[in-house]
């Protein structure tokens, strides 16, 4: 199987290299063919791998492919760990990536950076696969940073746009904060477990669960809690959890296909994946689980609220992504890792769908993104309309759609959980359902129904987008609707993950829920009597009532509740705070150090001082090389004599 795994990973890389370095030679069509071929191969192999591990019962593969370096007994290597979790992830990643590749042909049709774009997204696919297939922390970190790099490059893809540059810088800096924690976490693992291999670390975890470390004198911290929280800080950066969420909405400055691929479906879920992968560590720290859950709940609820007041079509979807990532984290915190991964998968499909549909609308609207200037698009763009509807229904968890199964499972799991913070989290995710329905359908109604508010010129040119755009929409709509129904039983309540995910018996909330589980239909029927369904319907109805039936209500609320509106519109002033406190503060400290430390001491005295003296020395010593043959011979003989003398006297 090793060759299959290698091929799976390297095919997109090959595509990226060809499209990136030889873009001029292969041309635009060449660039998209070669990358689509690479990702296509990767997808087919992923399906084979999935079949091998899930249906044929293939054993978990955990081998080293290449040893990069051995230093002080610690091996740094590239290796693959392929089990059910990995198999699921690679299928999702390659499928969505393939759809986005095809979609990009239409979306980026006239862009001068066409080849560059394909190269980046293929490179992203490679990095993401490296991340999810890794069997050790170093490779995980490599994949982690590589997807971050591609994300950075793609947010700033239109590098002549100031806002894009600002956004990618912001994404970069915020992720640095998260990565710092992540790196510390990995360092702690290396220090206390003495290995970077998952298998070794996980095997040691039970014996180290009660050990404590003294980071600052006099404080005793549980080792597991420290490691898990540090790693989770990395996940907070990558998966945009409060308070490191600020970069994700701004990342919408990038082209829409990557918003779908990277900033919704795959990369941002890396944090969730990581927590699930590290379940053998997290299980031993209730504190860390509680931390994960509370952070997730805060993100799920408060970011959803912000979504209600946004007017940029992509930003609405972006806040929805933030909120859904919060749901996944809540599930992980409740030890329902399977539910988290399940929601990750369903979310990948319907969120990619929603983003691509938004992109389709944006194409039709000539790159205008304000939903206040849209309306009534239903009759112009039937395919986009219907697929968006399916996506939105899945998002709000309409019974039977994929989102229903995953979200319901999460809410149930949190309800059953006894981890500290579970109560707050339960209410947050429950109310979140209402908010989700509200902002999703607010956007949906404003875009597709009601008065046509766009200007005359745009209206004249309105038409459905080409097949390369609508094709992926339809292909993504199918799993958005049915994947939940097909897989809920085995993934959530069956034995799908086997040993890939480890849950302590006392944390096993999914098993608790599973006791009442009868069949998919039963789950749906049960769901229709539970509060989340009614909350979702309430949200949907409220959206219809406020934005379709009586639009003046929206204005009234806005005027009467100025401060709340302002708070939400400004996203809780997180940006302003960061700007003033962290950015301003570090600039201040930086300037201080620069003036006194850098210019005076380091530059003046040490760097320039030593450089000058070396330069002077060099100009003196070079005269030893006189150019006279007899001097040379003389030096040789004197050298010989001195060396002889060294030993003889």
């Amino acid at each position, binding site marked *: 199987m090793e060759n299959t795994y290698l091929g799976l990973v390297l095919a997109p890389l090959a595509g990226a290299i060809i499209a990136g370095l030889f873009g001029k030679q292969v041309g635009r069509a060449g660039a998209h063919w070669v990358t689509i071929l690479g990702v296509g191969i990767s997808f087919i192999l992923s399906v084979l791998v999935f079949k091998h591990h899930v249906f044929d019962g293939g054993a978990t593969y955990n081998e080293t492919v290449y040893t*990069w370096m051995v230093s002080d007994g610690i091996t740094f290597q590239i290796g693959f760990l392929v089990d059910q979790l990995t198999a699921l992830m690679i299928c999702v990643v390659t499928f969505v990536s393939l759809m986005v590749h095809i979609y990009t042909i239409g979306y980026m049709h006239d862009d001068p950076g066409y080849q560059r774009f394909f190269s980046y997204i293929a490179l992203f696919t490679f990095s993401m696969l490296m991340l999810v297939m890794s069997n050790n922390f170093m490779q995980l970190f490599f994949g982690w940073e590589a997807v971050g790099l591609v994300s950075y490059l793609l947010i700033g893809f239109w590098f002549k746009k100031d806002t894009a540059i600002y956004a990618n810088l912001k994404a970069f800096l915020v992720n640095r904060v998260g990565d710092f924690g992540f790196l510390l976490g990995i360092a702690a693992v290396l220090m206390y477990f003495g290995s970077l291999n998952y298998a070794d670390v996980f095997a040691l975890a039970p014996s180290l669960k009660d050990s404590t470390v003294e980071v600052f004198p006099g404080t005793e911290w549980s080792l597991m809690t420290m490691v898990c929280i540090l790693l989770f800080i990395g996940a907070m950066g990558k998966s945009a959890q409060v308070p490191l969420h600020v970069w994700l909405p701004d990342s919408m400055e990038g082209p829409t296909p990557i918003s779908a691929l990277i900033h919704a479906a795959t990369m941002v879920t890396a944090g969730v994946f990581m927590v699930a992968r590290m379940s053998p560590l997290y299980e031993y720290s209730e504190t860390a689980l509680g931390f994960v859950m509370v952070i997730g709940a805060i993100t799920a609820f408060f970011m959803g609220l912000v979504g209600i007041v946004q007017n940029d079509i992509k930003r609405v979807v972006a806040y929805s992504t933030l909120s859904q990532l919060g749901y996944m984290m809540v599930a992980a915190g409740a030890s329902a890792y399977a539910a988290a991964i399940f929601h990750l998968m369903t979310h990948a499909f319907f969120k990619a769908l929603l983003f691509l549909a938004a992109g389709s609308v944006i194409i039709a609207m000539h790159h205008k993104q304000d939903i206040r200037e849209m309306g009534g698009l239903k009759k112009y763009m039937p395919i986009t309309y219907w697929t968006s509807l399916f996506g939105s229904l899945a998002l709000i968890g309409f019974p039977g759609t994929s989102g229903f199964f995953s979200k319901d499972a999460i809410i149930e799991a949190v309800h059953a959980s006894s981890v500290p913070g579970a109560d707050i989290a339960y209410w947050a995710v429950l109310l979140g359902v209402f908010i989700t329905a509200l902002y999703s359908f607010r956007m949906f109604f404003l875009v597709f129904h009601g008065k046509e508010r766009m200007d005359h010129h745009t209206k004249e040119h309105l038409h459905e987008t080409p097949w390369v755009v609508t094709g992926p929409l339809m292909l993504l709509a199918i799993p958005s609707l049915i994947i939940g129904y097909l897989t809920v039983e085995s993934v959530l309540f069956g034995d799908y993950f086997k040993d890939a995910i480890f849950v302590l018996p006392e944390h096993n909330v999914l098993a608790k829920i599973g006791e009442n589980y009868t069949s998919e239909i039963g789950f749906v029927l049960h769901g229709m009597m539970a509060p989340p369904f009614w909350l979702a319907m309430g949200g949907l109805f409220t959206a219809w009532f406020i934005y379709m039936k009586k639009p003046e209500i929206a204005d009234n609320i806005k005027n009467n509740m100025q401060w709340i509106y302002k708070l939400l519109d400004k996203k809780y002033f997180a940006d302003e705070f960061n700007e003033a406190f962290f950015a301003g503060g570090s600039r201040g400290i930086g300037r201080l150090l620069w003036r006194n430390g850098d210019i005076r001491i380091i530059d003046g005295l040490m760097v320039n001082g030593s*450089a000058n003296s*070396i330069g002077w020395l*060099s100009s003196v010593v070079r005269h030893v090389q006189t150019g006279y043959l007899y001097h040379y011979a003389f030096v040789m003989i004197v*050298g010989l004599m001195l*060396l002889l003398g060294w*030993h003889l006297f």
Partner: protein
Amino acid sequence: MNFDYTQLIPLLPEITVLTMACLVLVVDVYKTSKDSNLTYYLTQLTLVMAAILTIALPATETNRVFNGMFVADSMSDLLKLFIYIVSFMVFVYSREYLRAREMYRGEYFVLGLFGILGMMIMVSAHNLLMVYLGLELLSLCLYAMVAMQRNVVTVSEAAMKYFVLGALASGMLLYGMSLLYGATGTLDIVEMSNKLSTGDLSSSLIMITGMVFLITGLGFKLGAVPFHMWVPDVYHGAPTSVTLYIGAAPKIAAFALVMRLLVEGLGSMQAQWQDILIIMTVLSLFVGNVIAIAQTNIKRMLAYSTISHVAYLLLGIIAGTQSGYVASMFYVIVYAIMSMAAFGMILFLSRAGFEADSLDDLKGLNERSPWYAFMMLIVMFSMAGVPPLLGFWAKLAVLKAVVEVDLVWLAVTAVAFSIIGAFYYLRVVKLMYFDKAEDTNDFIAGPDMRFFLSANALAILGLGIFPGGLLSLCASALGM
């Protein structure tokens, strides 16, 4: 007299190179067209044939033939293989340059082949006479190659200096050998080592004197201070293609010589030669890195860079451990690959009547060709030892080796000098990327050169990211 003809099998690569060199010589004098590529292709064919033979007949164990005169082991196989590869590239790079200077004649290739034969003998010599034979065969070819463009003043000066100093050095080497012979009564390296391992011969006056003379000869070949004086002048004065030839493969052979003589032969005198090598290394680090800063000619700068690289190479030998020798071997191969690319780049930039050997000629290379500027950037960064390029791993390996034997001060010195050295490598990068181009002519290099030069530089990058393969190759060649 009974002669076991199977003894010839390990020599097949040498026999092939010799036969083909003679053939190339005859073909060259009889060929009619002056611009014919025949000799060139025959030369390259020879190297390919030799490589195939070396790979096809691997030495599974140490195989000593001709009464122990000649040895074939896995170290000699690997080093020979790299000598072929490096020489192959050297000939590819040199082609356009030679053509533009009317040196594209059989002599360059014949001398080149005989030089390669000399290196192969050096690598496989297990007897002092064979060592000398190989060394002289190589040296004579080099003297003649340096002097090929004899109507250019700098060239004849370089050739003269090289020849006189080379003769002096080989005289010292020979004197050292005769002293060793006098003390031990044998020329055979293995026998000598056996004799030295018992009794207190190792610390006798005559052995130490002999050893110092021997090291002088080796030091000259390697270009270690204080026997380095020829290096800058010859590198600078010689035609660039010859500089390339001198700078790359012969260092591999010189490394083999050090291994055969000091490690295998005088292994029990390690305490004595370690001191001397340390002195030479520290001096080389100083001279190589510090004087390079003041250079304006890139060939001269690279000559000093060579001196400093030799110092790093010696670090592994100084460590005197198996892992140290592996590190040195890795270093010399890496050095050959890097210096090939660096001189190759000068050849790439040059054309008829223009040597491109001044640092200023690199100005603004990025504007002229971002790709080749990037290639040069890789080479310079690698020479400076910037991770993750190949040069970094090589430096790391030798430094690790000396730290392991508790010579931490030496490692620290080496690192300090490599920081100073980084300055002049980075200056090249600065010139390429931040200065305005003075020369705007098109490059004349052919597709083969472009391909191999790019492959060469990318290999530095690629092998740097995956250094494990080459490193384990070196380790297994030394039986680790």
